[in-house]
């Protein structure tokens, strides 16, 4: 390990401009050093800004404040020594495997013979021999991502950026590709010196990374940094490995001390009328509560355990757990989820009773739902336009988020039969079709 970092981010901050001109903060106080020989993982849920940070490093976007340097030089635009692997592969469908791989070298205006030699070497290294003349559509997902890797490696980058490179693949294919990558990495057969990996898969992070930065949302920031010192190759069944995973779950569900920035209110939305609501269906909530209520959990479950039991990724698990917490059906802390009394009652009720319980909690604990209901009750016509609430929400969030939030509340309200919504004329009302 050399002394000066390959890559350095100092107090990086990124804000987008909302349509109304207000800034929307997505990243704050980002500090990151990447040293030679390291894989650094950026772990978090969607919306935590980890992909944004990766794009800043790749030079595809500019930070609002702070500094990013690569080998001591500020990053302005895509740097030659930094290559990227994309979640959806981002291959050019009209180019063959060979042409896709060669493209980055052609952009560098290298002599033709050199392009050919290096492209074939990269194709060979990543196990794509024999597929040179195939078009991406003729390949399976795993093979396509191999092209993605070959394309990135062929330019001999110092740093490889990976944006959830395995998340679009099935479990088995992803595992094979990960193992192959780690083999090449530990054997030092790739030209790269350091890796930044974005992921929302905790196991993947622990399996691959030397350091993990756990991201929190709203705005995206680093909650904690975890060093993984287990030797490669790592074994999922190793108790140390399980302990590591448990620890990350605890970190991710930790109640922040005090209020202020990064406080509970931001992590558990729904406490104000202007909070963005997650897209979690009532079915998913009901299923989750049933699972937690049933044996072997009996009302209290360890998050990693129930995640592997229900085969849920953290991207699905955390929104459900937090929505239940918001609706006071569950408590989430220290890597555990525990049903409240009403949560347990819900799990054991009939359909009609469930709807009553849900309705009560929805109107009590989701201020937006309560607000809509109050407006409808007060009006003689018992109806109101959707645009009215959208306008209100847009004081707090972007247009798109307002729309999503309203859709979430509509779904819950329909389940709870708290109020009705007609999509054809965009009207809320109290009448339910009988």
């Amino acid at each position, binding site marked *: 390990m050399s002394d000066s970092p390959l890559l350095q981010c100092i107090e990086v901050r990124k804000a987008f401009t909302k349509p109304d001109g207000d800034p929307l903060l997505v990243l704050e106080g980002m500090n990151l050093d990447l040293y030679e020989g390291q894989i650094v993982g950026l772990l978090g849920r969607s919306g935590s800004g980890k992909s944004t940070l990766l794009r800043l490093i790749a*030079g*595809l976007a500019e930070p609002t404040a702070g500094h990013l340097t690569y080998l001591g030089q500020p990053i302005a635009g895509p740097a030659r020594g930094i290559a990227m692997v994309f979640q959806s592969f981002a291959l050019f469908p009209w180019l063959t495997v060979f042409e896709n791989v060669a493209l980055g070298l052609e952009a560098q205006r290298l002599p033709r013979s050199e392009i050919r030699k290096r492209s074939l070497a990269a194709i060979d290294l990543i196990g794509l021999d024999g597929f040179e003349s195939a078009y991406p559509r003729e390949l399976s997902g795993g093979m396509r991502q191999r092209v993605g890797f070959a394309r990135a490696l062929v330019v001999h980058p110092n740093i490889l950026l990976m944006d959830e490179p395995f998340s679009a693949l099935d479990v088995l294919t992803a595992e094979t590709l990960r193992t192959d990558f780690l083999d090449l990495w530990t054997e030092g057969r790739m030209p790269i010196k350091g890796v930044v990996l974005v992921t929302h898969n905790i196991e993947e992070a622990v399996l691959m990374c030397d350091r993990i930065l756990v991201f929190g949302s709203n705005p995206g920031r680093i909650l904690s940094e975890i060093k993984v010192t287990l030797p490669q190759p790592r074994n999922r069944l190793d108790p140390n490995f399980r302990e590591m995973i448990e620890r990350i779950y605890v970190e991710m569900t930790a109640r922040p001390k005090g209020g202020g920035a990064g406080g509970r209110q931001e992590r558990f939305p729904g406490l104000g009328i202007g909070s963005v609501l997650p897209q979690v269906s009532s079915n998913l909530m009901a299923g989750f509560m049933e699972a937690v209520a049933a044996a072997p959990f009996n009302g209290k479950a360890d998050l990693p355990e129930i995640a592997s039991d229900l085969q849920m990724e953290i991207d699905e698990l955390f929104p459900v757990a937090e929505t239940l917490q918001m609706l006071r059906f569950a408590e989430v802390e220290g890597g555990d989820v525990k049903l409240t009394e009403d949560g347990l009652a819900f799990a054991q009720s009939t359909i009609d009773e469930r709807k009553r319980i849900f309705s009560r909690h929805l109107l009590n604990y989701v201020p937006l739902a309560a607000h809509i209901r109050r407006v409808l009750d007060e009006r003689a016509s018992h109806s109101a336009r959707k645009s009215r609430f959208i306008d209100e929400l847009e004081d707090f969030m972007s247009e798109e988020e307002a729309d999503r939030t309203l859709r979430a509340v509509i779904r819950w309200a329909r389940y709870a039969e708290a109020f009705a919504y007609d999509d054809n004329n965009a009207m809320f009302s109290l009448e339910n079709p009988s």
Partner: protein
Amino acid sequence: MKRFEPYVFLRQLATRWDILAFIVVIGLIAFLGETARGLFEPLAELEITPLSLNPAHLPEYAARTTFRMLAALFFSLVFTLTYATWAAKSERAGRLLVPILDILQSVPILGFISITSVFFLSLAPGRVLGAEFAAIFAIFTSQAWNMAFSFYQSLRTVPTELTEAAESFRLSPWMRFWQLEVPFGMPALVWNMMLSMSGGWFFVVASESISVGHSAVALPGVGSYIALAIEQKNLRAIGWAILTMLIVILIYDQLLFRPLVAWVDRFRVEQEPGERVPEAWALTMMRRSRLINAATVAFHAAVLWTSRAVKHAEGDAPPIQAVDRPKRSLDLLWVSLVIVVVVLGLWHLVAGLITETSMHEALHVCGLAVITMLRVFVLIALASLVWVPIGIWVGMRPRAAQIVQPIAQFMAAFPANLLFPIAVYGIVEWKLNPDVYLSPLMILGTQWYILFNIIAGASSIPAEMRFAAANLGVTGWLWWRKVALPAVLPFYVTGAITASGGSWNAAQVAELATWGHTEVRARGLGSYIAQAAAADNFHQIVLGVGVMSLFVVIINRVFWRPLYYYAERKYRLT
């Protein structure tokens, strides 16, 4: 089964830029008309190649007609790659360029041919070349707009990850254009080229034989041949011309478009295997041919070579941001440029119209437009009554669809104006009421868009949905109402929009027809424009085309577009 790209247009109902765009377009037309008028006199004498009705000449005529089509297609491509790129890359320019394109798409340019002809003839006076340019320009106007529009849409919808990949591998803008943006836009562009071609045949027939002043310019071609046949009341010759056109379109389809469609399939970004790959024997032949192979390799090398050359010229400049940052001074310049053009356009419009048009005439023209509008809507309704049930029936039967679909597409490409003389002959012979019996001609060529869109829609109904309906015992009228009609609605709207636009254009040819020296006329805006063109009354042409454009634009904005988005939102399967 072929996938149909939805009709492309702007999403908003209307912005102030649209109004500016409308003024610019109509202003330009008026300006051209005014200019042409001044150029008129010295052009009275024109050398005309004598035409012959001998069928032996038809292959030569057909070749010339086809050449004009290809030339226009080439210019349309050049226009597309430049105009659309400019509109997409520069936010400043795009704000006006895109609405202009949208308006141009709706302007029925056909009535305007005689004016543009004078303009082009003046560029090369007394030469056939001028007339050739005029014809090619007329075809160009029927092809370029929707091609440019589709390419613009493609440029705006290149997947972010592909753009990011191109950027992170430091492709130069030139290389990115040829390696990413052009290939990505290709499928939609080829599809729109096919649509354009269908319209183009119609125009080529109409534009080869034009009267300028008191002399007629007849370029050797199928269109002039048929015009001569009409003048000489020669039904046999018309039959020959129709046969020739059938063969020409067949060859065009087999040699140009089928290979293009099959080739372009590789540019589709959705990479799911399983969908049937389009086949074309001509493409297979080309792929196996060393000559063609060498040509593609050469093209690829040219792209790479120019990339290098261009990059050298650029130097190793820092990467260029995708969207240029607006600069105050440039903005000011741009806005003042727009204002100048708009004021000029407005001035020409007002000056031209006020001095030569009475309020009475304007109202009269609007009344005629209402008549033509009614005609278009009634015809679309009638055609729908016929083709929707047939299309659904065919679309549900894959084997039938395989036979009927190419025929419908072929019929859409066939220039219906070739068939007009036969109908007109009948109307003259039996002394039928032209107000009624000329009308169907307007939709003769465009009804096929309804049919083949419906077939495409019906064949895309998932088998499980049909089984479910059968399983629940949904039959008869209930089945049509709840299953079949909603499922094809988005496709129907797409087809009806195309058919309606085409019918407005066709009105200018269909409402006024001749047989020998007999003239049959249906009351409407189309015949008004046609008569004005025959009489070289420029202000009447401008007024007629202007009012027709206004009608088409308004109908598109307040009727078709909302309907399209409603259908897309509510009834799109998957």
